[in-house]
């Protein structure tokens, strides 16, 4: 019966062949570590956010007079409303944790390199969409942090030359963040996730075309590739289990961990809280914004700090495979960059002040310097490695990959 049903479907839709091609016969490098789990986790979180968001939207009211109350209504009166809201609010932070780890893995192992540039760039678009969605979603509870966060960030567009004021007014639909702003943020917060789903499909189609990268950084021989199912379904599901244990620990036992105290005060357009901070996932970029004394300069620097990731395939000019594994200088740089981002995040969480400001400026300089010196460092590092004599294992890897291509002269 089931077989006849599948046969009936297969005549009309390539179900079996799709599963075969994309799962049971889809070849995946055997040596993927658990760092390769995070893309799957991001997909899971996207679904969780969409589902919990739809159910929250059934009770939420995007009106300046009702929004805050409706969130409390969800927390107190709706059956399991507290659970659904905490899943959604914790899910937002978890999404960024997972996506940032996913990006860090890509940077560490050099997975952005040819032929995976389009994966990296579609991921970049996903990050920006995710940030937009998170930013708009954060306004919806209509607490003090929500309000002043939106007020500050929309004001940034005022730095646009010539038409800044008009753009800010247009974005808000009001002279300050108001009812019109809240309503449109709600509409867009509901819309953007569907763009994200579309972009994720593009990301996955590209992935299945170029196949997964792997820690060695080269295309593996056939014997080292194994079908995705059952090997990686099992591995990913186990990873999901571990993730869910940690995630539920936050949801059930520390759900307010990611919620600022001031966001439990209803928005008050007449009074700014003494210390406003953005959500933790925006902190490094917020510091870069504040590090530059000029508004326009700050906005441009902040935008560049996100967009510059897209240039990685061009900035990294080394031909040594395996990302940071075989490249001591790149590896050191990677760790410095990670520490630098942590410092930026810490500075962002502090009130603006003399010393923290200086640290923020220094960390901003290091942030951009890491990207801008990469072309020279990566070239020099490759020459240095070759001059020293590559380890035989790496030499073998390198030969197997670079042989078919004409070798370019090192400058």
């Amino acid at each position, binding site marked *: 019966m089931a077989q006849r049903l599948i046969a009936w479907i297969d005549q009309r839709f390539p179900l079996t062949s799709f599963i075969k091609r994309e799962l049971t016969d889809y070849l995946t490098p055997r040596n993927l570590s658990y760092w390769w789990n995070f893309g799957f986790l991001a997909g899971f979180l996207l679904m969780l956010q969409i*589902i*919990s968001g739809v159910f929250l939207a059934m009770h939420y009211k995007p009106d300046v007079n009702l929004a805050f109350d409706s969130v409390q209504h969800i927390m107190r009166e709706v059956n399991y409303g507290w659970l659904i809201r905490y899943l959604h609010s914790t899910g937002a932070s978890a999404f960024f944790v997972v996506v940032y780890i996913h990006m860090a893995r890509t940077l560490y192992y050099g997975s952005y390199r040819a032929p995976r540039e389009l994966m990296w760039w579609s991921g970049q678009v996903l990050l920006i969409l995710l940030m937009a969605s998170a930013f708009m979603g954060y306004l919806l509870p209509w607490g003090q942090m929500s309000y002043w966060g939106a007020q500050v960030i929309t004001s940034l567009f005022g730095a646009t030359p010539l038409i800044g004021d008009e753009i800010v007014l247009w974005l808000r639909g009001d002279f300050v963040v108001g009812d019109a702003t809240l309503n449109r943020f709600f509409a867009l917060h509901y819309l953007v996730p569907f763009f994200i789903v579309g972009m994720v499909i593009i990301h996955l189609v590209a992935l299945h075309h170029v196949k997964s990268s792997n820690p060695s950084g080269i295309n593996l021989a056939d014997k080292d590739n194994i079908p995705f199912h059952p090997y990686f379904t099992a591995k990913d599901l186990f990873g999901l289990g571990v993730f869910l244990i940690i995630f539920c620990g936050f949801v059930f036992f520390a759900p307010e961990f990611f919620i600022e105290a001031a966001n439990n005060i209803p928005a008050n357009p007449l009074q700014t809280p003494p210390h406003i901070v953005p959500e933790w996932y925006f902190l490094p970029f917020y510091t870069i914004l504040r590090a530059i004394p000029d508004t326009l300069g700050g906005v441009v620097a902040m935008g560049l700090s996100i967009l510059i990731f897209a240039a990685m395939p061009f900035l990294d000019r080394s031909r040594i495979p395996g990302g940071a594994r075989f490249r001591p200088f790149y590896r050191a740089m990677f760790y410095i960059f990670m520490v630098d981002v942590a410092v930026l995040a810490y500075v962002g969480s502090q009130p603006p002040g003399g010393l923290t400001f200086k640290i923020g400026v220094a960390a901003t300089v290091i942030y951009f310097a890491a990207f801008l010196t990469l072309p020279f460092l990566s070239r020099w590092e490759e020459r240095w490695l070759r001059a020293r004599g590559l380890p035989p294992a790496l030499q073998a890897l390198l030969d197997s990959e670079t042989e078919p291509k004409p070798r370019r002269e090192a400058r």
Partner: protein
Amino acid sequence: MAEDEGVDEKRRDFLLTVTGTVGVAGIAAACWPFISSMNPTLDVQTQSNTEVDLSGVAAGATRTVAWRGKPVFVVHRTPQQIAAMAQSAGGKDPAPDQARVQEPQWLVVVGICTHLGCVPNKTEEGWLCPCHGSVFDNSGRVLQGPAPRNLEVPPYHFAATDKIVIG
């Protein structure tokens, strides 16, 4: 490895069945909060009772009050109406009038047609539903039309001679 293969296969199958069952049970359980969130919220479930002051309702008049969002008809029946209702057994869904009232002069019924939920309009003889023409008498019993049951009598009690509490 080779000699264990049969055993291994079996053990894996068993493991898969157990894990599959546990996993499906977990997914089903995880659905419940979401389904449950669409049920009436706590504040709706614990909505208040409605008090009706009967003193202003003249004989022959009807007052419509809201109880948990639903219309409730409170009818002050005349002696003639009481007598007529006591004699009739109703229509499709026969019920004695005494069983539908606590005090014969006060009829309290939920004003929602048992057919598809419209609010019937008051007539001399009872009610006429505007949607598909069901006819109810002055005891709220259905006489004609598609409505299957009599108008529902809500739970209520007399808090005083001229005051009832619905709910």
